[in-house]
């Protein structure tokens, strides 16, 4: 994945992710990114987040540094996306009091193709927001340009 396409997101959706991270602090928040992937449609590479599906973090045992989304949650998110004519193009979660960088645990549990947005929340205030994609060989995440837009791009 040498040329990771840009991930576009509307400003109000980026703010919604930040708010979710603040609301659940000091626990991790998580949710699905609903949108369109232009490459899959044979267009110029690029994908855009056009909706969110907030989820409940299923990790009751360590919600401060882990999040978990069950297969049923994934199926629900896919259904919600389909109803809106969209696809699940990735996932977001927060890193309470940690940088917006994927951890080794993130990498070990990641799927390819999806975009993974991470928002850092320090002392209850949202800070950096980044996006990442897993390399094809699973050895590392690559940063994905995240561009906040006012209007639809894809």
């Amino acid at each position: 994945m040498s040329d990771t396409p840009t991930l576009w997101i509307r400003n109000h959706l980026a703010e919604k992710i930040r708010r979710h991270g603040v609301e659940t602090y000091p626990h991790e928040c998580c949710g699905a990114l609903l949108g369109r992937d232009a490459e899959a449609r044979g267009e110029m590479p690029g994908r855009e987040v056009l909706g969110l599906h907030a989820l409940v973090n299923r990790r009751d045992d360590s919600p401060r540094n882990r999040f978990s989304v069950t297969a049923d949650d994934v199926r629900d998110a896919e259904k919600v996306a389909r109803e809106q004519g969209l696809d699940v193009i990735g996932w977001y979660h927060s890193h309470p009091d940690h940088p917006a960088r994927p951890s080794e645990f993130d990498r070990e549990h990641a799927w390819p193709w999806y975009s993974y947005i991470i928002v850092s929340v320090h002392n209850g205030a949202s800070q950096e927001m980044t996006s990442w994609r897993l390399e094809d060989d699973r050895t590392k995440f690559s940063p994905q340009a995240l561009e906040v837009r006012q209007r639809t791009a894809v």
Partner: protein
Amino acid sequence: MAVKVIIPTPLRPYAGKRDSAEFKASTVGEALGHLTTEFADLRKHLFTDDGKLRSFVNVYVNDEDIRYLAKENTPTKDGDTISIIPSIAGGCG
């Protein structure tokens, strides 16, 4: 007739962009074996280096989770649908 394997969106780039594939198979393990033989790049995303299904890979026969059946030895018959459903996990370490 055969067993149909539904390939989830994030794995389609490793399966010739196909959303499903059909194989003659009498167990789930056999079907997944055919799948990862035909599309070798799928293997590392579904299985660990020692050949076990990754913990965040969920496999269903029709709507039954194979963890509650006979896992990869779960028998299949013509017309069955095998779905590979991701679960998502992560965290700041």
